Each structure stands twice: as C-alpha cells, then as structure tokens.
C-alpha cells in the first residue's frame, strides 16, 4: 500500500528502443494527462553504459571509456519494471516536460543529464545503476535482491521483452 513509483526510483525499461536499460524516474504522472490517459512517468536513463576500465588504461582511455549516453523519455508504467534501488541525482530542473517539446531542447537536456550521470559514475557510487543488465537474447534476466523476511535472497527473474534482439 506504499506508493513506490516515485521520483528517484531506479527502474528498468522493458519495451521500446531502450528496452533493458536502467533509468531513474524524474517525474511521475499517476493519473495521466489529456494526451496520455494512463499512468506514466518521465524517466532519464542510460542509453550507452560506461565501459569497463582496467588498470593499464591511460588517462585518455579511461576518460573515453567512462562516457555515458543518456536518454529522456515518457514511459507508460506498464513498460517499466521498478526495482528496489534508488538514484538521487538532481535532475528535476533539467529533465522537464518542456524539454521534450523540441529536438534541440531534448538534446541539450540529454547532454546535461549525461554530464550529471558521468559525474555520479566517477564517484563510484550507485554501481548497480551504471552496470549493464545481463540478459539473454529475447529475454531480460533480472537479478533483484530482495530483503525478504530479514534475509537477503537472490532471485533471478526472467521477463519477455518485445522487439529486442
């Protein structure tokens, strides 16, 4: 009975071009709007995950590998899998409905989101969010750790994703 689709919740996008990508809810519209009469939310997610950096990488290579590509999207609640993780990066001023109106606004908003994501990634926090979700072809395998009855239990779940290679 607790509302859990709130801002700063980490979710996994299940459908569309960004299926299988992790995202964070920036703003949620539980009742929907005129144009979208269903529950949906504005998410900012990772388009391209940062690559693995090894010890012998030069500074230039590390910088290149730590790049993140971000996306901003309005997603239906049923195309999202909520997780128990949160990510508090302040994106409310950058990621707005207004930013989705035109192409250039979207690009600038995405660039700013990318900068904030990269900054957070480099601190080494929220490691789960910035790691790629491993899944088989045509199927997303979610390893979600639940605290369940005072114990941490690892559970693997599988969910079908439409249109994913």
């Amino acid at each position, binding site marked *: *009975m*607790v509302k859990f689709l709130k801002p700063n919740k980490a979710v996994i996008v299940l459908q569309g071009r960004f299926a299988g990508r992790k995202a964070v809810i920036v703003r949620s519209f*539980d009742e929907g709007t005129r144009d979208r009469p269903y529950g949906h939310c504005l998410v900012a997610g990772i388009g391209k995950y940062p690559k693995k950096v090894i010890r012998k990488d030069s500074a230039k290579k590390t910088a290149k590998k730590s790049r993140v590509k971000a996306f901003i999207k309005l997603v239906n609640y049923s195309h999202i899998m909520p997780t*128990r993780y949160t990510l508090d990066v302040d994106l409310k001023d950058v990621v707005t409905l207004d930013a989705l109106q035109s192409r250039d606004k979207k690009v600038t908003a995405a660039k700013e989101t990318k900068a904030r994501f990269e900054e957070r990634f480099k601190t080494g926090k929220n490691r789960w969010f910035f790691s790629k979700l491993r899944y088989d072809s045509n199927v997303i395998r979610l390893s979600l750790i639940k605290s*369940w*009855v005072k114990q941490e239990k690892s*559970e693997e779940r*599988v*969910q079908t994703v439409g249109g994913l290679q």
Partner: protein
Amino acid sequence: MVAVKKSKKTHESINNRLALVMKSGKYTLGYKTVLHSLRNSKGKLILLSNNCPPLRKSEIEYYAMLAKVGVHHFNGNNVDLGTACGKYFRVSCLSIIDPGDSDIIKTLPGDH
C-alpha cells in the same frame, strides 16, 4: 522453514472470507489489474493460485514487496481460486482493494 500443511478448517475459512469479499468488497481479478492495483497502491492483499507461473509469481511478489502489501499463496490452482471467487472461469491472481465486511486482510498475512 517447513511449510505448514494447511488444515481443511483454515482453508474453508479462507474460502468463506473470500466469498464475503466478493459480496461486499472491491477486488480485481487477473494479472494486469493486479499490477495496476499495486502500482497505484490500491491493493491491500494479493492472492495467487498455486499453479501461477513462477516468473509471474515472483514478479507479483516483488511488486508487493515494494508496495508493502501481503501476498497469500492460495492452496489450490486457478480453477479452485476461480470457484472460490464464485466465478465460472479460472483466476490465477487477484487483488483485494476493499475488503468490505470481511476480516481477510487482518487474518491472512501471517504467511507472506
């Protein structure tokens, strides 16, 4: 943890309570609406049949864990759960939104 074999008595009482909810309360049947009720925090108790596919079962349990809602694994398959709801179709999962006169919500979530 050893699963306690549900005695016939308690099973009947669950059915009675469910029947009371069907009569006097609000509920939704089916996977899609169960997830809806969990998302907008309207659901108060979820019941799953025992032949609910394990992926779907864990997904609903995960949502319920996030929403802090109890899940009860009904001691019977979807045919039995449908019958318990007084319906002539199979019901794999159902969500109780308003228990009406029933005390099902207070008495059931002893097991997760």
